[in-house]
């Protein structure tokens, strides 16, 4: 009786080891920003199709989550919609992890309103005032006499940090702002609410919401590429040290013309033609 158990468990154990070894050979784990998710999803599908046998697992969770996983060595690639923070680098160093940045695409953050809203353009300053809760009615910026419902991403999202960097410049977002947990939730909320304003990564803007001009400039792939549009940012993939093996090949694929075609198809701004793409360390 006992013997059977022993044999069975030994067999199971061996199975685990062999399976583990097989997976470890050709698998990549990617984790991080929900903004970069469509880019990673699109490129890894194409990559896995072209390289059968390679297993790539992808999960969201947020830029901070990805970086945390990279530091804990539970992911091979961390995607991030912001640059890694000083504290995170310090923490990484204590654990012997050396994050290396790879810019894989550009994103533009676009303020959006409900299609019924008549406003077409806001200045950076007006946006800041609205988000600080100092402008509370659309008529103050030339719209209808309606209360403004300010919608923001959670204070720990990468998109929020970029918005803070471009628009708020460290000023506090009003506590009355609705803080929603994903880009998708923002789209739903604005599409169904004519009082609302929110901001989205360019990949998430669709017909159900109306993108606003900022300082008179329409956000588009072209204006973001030329840096004419003020709120554009790099999207990153971080690896521990210079990537090797499959991870290196995958990142190379993402940056290749073919990978960048997918980036553009997902609604992001490709690296190609952007002169400053290589400026990161």
């Amino acid at each position, binding site marked *: 009786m006992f013997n059977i158990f022993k044999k069975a468990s030994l067999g199971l154990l061996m199975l685990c080891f062999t399976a583990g070894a097989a997976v470890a050979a050709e698998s990549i784990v990617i984790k991080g920003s929900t903004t970069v998710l469509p880019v990673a999803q699109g490129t890894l599908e194409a990559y896995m199709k072209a390289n059968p046998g390679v297993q790539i697992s992808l999960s969201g969770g947020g830029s*901070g989550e990805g970086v*945390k996983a990279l530091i804990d060595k539970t992911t091979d690639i961390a995607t991030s919609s912001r640059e890694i923070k000083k504290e995170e680098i310090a923490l990484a160093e204590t654990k012997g992890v050396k994050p290396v940045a790879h810019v894989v695409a550009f994103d533009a953050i676009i303020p959006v309103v409900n299609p019924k809203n008549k406003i077409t353009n806001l200045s950076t300053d007006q946006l800041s005032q609205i988000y600080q809760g100092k402008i509370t009615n659309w008529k103050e910026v030339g719209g209808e006499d309606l209360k403004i419902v300010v919608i923001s991403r959670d*204070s720990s999202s990468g998109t929020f940090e970029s918005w803070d960097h471009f628009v708020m410049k460290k000023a506090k977002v009003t506590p009355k702002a609705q803080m929603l947990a994903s880009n998708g939730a923002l789209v*739903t909320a604005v599409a169904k609410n004519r009082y609302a304003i929110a901001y989205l990564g360019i990949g998430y803007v669709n017909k159900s919401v109306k993108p606003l001009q900022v300082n008179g400039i329409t956000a588009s792939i072209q204006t973001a590429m030329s840096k004419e549009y003020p709120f554009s940012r790099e999207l990153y993939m971080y690896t521990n040290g210079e990537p090797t093996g499959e991870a290196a090949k995958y990142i190379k694929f993402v940056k290749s013309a073919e990978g960048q075609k997918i980036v553009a198809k997902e609604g992001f701004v490709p690296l190609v033609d952007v002169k400053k793409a290589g400026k990161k360390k």
Partner: protein
Amino acid sequence: MNRQTKEIIIKYIFFLFALVSVIVLGLIVFSLFREGLPIFGKVSVKDFIFGMEWYPTYDPPSFGIFPLIVGSLIVTLLATVIAVPLGVMAAIYIAEIAPQAIKEILKSVIELLAGLPSVVLGFFGMVIVAPWLQDTFDLPTGLNIVNASVILALMAIPTISSISEDALYAVPREYKEASYALGATKFETIVQVILPAAMSGISTAVMLGMARAIGETMVVLMVAGGAAAIPESLFDSVRPMPASIAAEMGEAPFRSGHYQALFAIGIVLFFLTLFFNLFADYVSHKFRQIGSGTL
């Protein structure tokens, strides 16, 4: 191995199983406190609980969770106000009035409602209830206290109704028969005899329903709107405590002030649910029927 030793061994094995949940709870509470308490080196308990500003990611950060506590309490309270009459009356109908066939259907439907994943209810609140509320009452936002409370009430009803129902069944037959014998109508019997006799169980049901509502995360994350300000009306957005933890924990740097503050919110929630449970216990003892009606 003789029979006595077998008995003893079996006894200890079962004791061990019973102990597992206690140990697990103990470890969870321990880590909750270990991760959460250090925040009180950075802010005082008073500033944490009564502080009006929740800006955990700014520099310098402010960790005031009063708006979050108010958000949690108001949503729970309103949900209770909606769920208690519905749940208790449904229980009375099922236990005392309904014919057998309807009883079976109702019971299984209510159980089904209990089995609905909260994310599905949250989605329903976000995509259907919110736009409807907004259009009907011309509100600035449909993601608000009322919406969250209605959805939470839907989740609390099965708890309240099934526990109340058990309490009603436990009322001894003699009570009813005595009441009818004195010439009381069915309505009089239910209101004046059965309900008071089952009061202990019904109060427990209400308390457990409230505990369910205050700890519920997904629904409030999706439909309460997430504004960390003290609401001025029932149609304002709020940010209840579980929603804050769920939304921010993923991105809070490990063992940072923000991370510790989120654990400390967990401690506050833990005490609140503990309070509800103790209170439920107290109430059920206080209204306890001595004799055959005891639940």
